[in-house]
């Protein structure tokens, strides 16, 4: 399944990716520490407008670590390729980030259509 996120230019996409990357790296580090400690945590879930609180071992959610790694790798490759192709120059136009099965996989660039006189 593919979905798209729209950005106003390439710089804002790069900013978004960098911010996300930082968040993921921090979260990964914290989660790994907690998993090593096998700490007990409270998990609050909002399901059908109800709040459910459960006390569980953090290891219950360690499966997300694989997802995190995939995501971090995907974002890194994207940032690397953007840097290769554009250095620090911007691209204003239609900038779309394509998520393929939940992973940010590709950047689609396009030009808006405008009206002009027939040559």
């Amino acid at each position, binding site marked *: 399944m593919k979905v798209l996120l729209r950005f106003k230019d390439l710089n804002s996409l790069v900013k978004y990716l960098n911010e996300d990357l930082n968040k993921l790296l921090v979260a990964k580090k914290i989660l790994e520490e907690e998993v090593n400690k096998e*700490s007990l945590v409270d998990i609050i879930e909002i399901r059908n407008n109800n709040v459910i609180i459960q006390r569980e071992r953090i290891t219950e959610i360690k499966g*997300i670590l694989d997802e995190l790694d995939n995501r971090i790798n995907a974002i890194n490759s994207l940032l690397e390729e953007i840097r290769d192709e554009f250095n620090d120059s911007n691209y204003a136009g239609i900038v779309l980030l394509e998520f393929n099965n939940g992973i940010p996989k590709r950047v689609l660039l396009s030009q808006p259509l405008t009206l002009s006189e027939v040559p």
Partner: protein
Amino acid sequence: MLIPVLIIAIMIGMLILGLLRPPLTVIIPLLGIYIILMLIPYIIPNLTINQYLSIKYIVIPIIGLVIGYGMSILINKYMSIDVRSLFKLNQGQKTVSKRPRKITNKQKSEKKPGIKPEDLDKIIPKSIDDLRLGITTNEALGSWIEYYDGWTDTIISVSRRFIDIKDSTEIISKEALFLSRIRQYENKALSLGLTLKEESAFKKQRQRRSRSKSNEDKLIVYVKPEDVTTDLMTTAQLMSGYVEEFNNIVEKLIRDKEISQYMINSQILVLYIDGIPRKFVTLHKES
């Protein structure tokens, strides 16, 4: 008579060297050796080996090198011939294309549908983990976690993400609508003497630069606006339900007093599942 021949030979040699455009680490030592040779009569005035061993002739090979270098660049630019590859010495290019090739391999191995028995050991626990977390098929924007020091930061960040996604979805919906009616617009525009055009020819120039890679491997793809229409339409459809669900969660987080009382003063891991912040893990600080 021997020395002028030698100098001309050196010049031709430098010209060819220039055509190959070697890195400075090759050029500088060569030039250094040559200059030292030519400076011998000045360093040791008593030693006269030959009249051609003089400062005047230093310039000749440098000119040769510059001409060669310049020609190489011009040929590459205007005739699209890489002179270095004519000499079968395109090592410089190899290092450039190494990285994309690695990506190709990675993608290819991911695409392989066959499952090896040893992979099952990994796949089964992963599937169990996914079920436990409630991940469906990795839909929408995927699943991940974020960490925050406190509840206020969490709320701000979750709301910001929600607004970003909502705005993006709204723009995409509008664009999808516009692009899907493009034919209609085009006919109307034509009757007014106007034509639909892409805003600039920028993308074509860019495309040429990265022609070494095939289209499939590229992570950055240039597309015609008409060609993304279908993708934009499906996104608009899929995301509308998603945005609504996300909105409900954000509302609940902000309004529900019980949650905020519970969360205050704790460090939080936010678990996004299929792009929606469903679970909030409060970490107990060690005391």
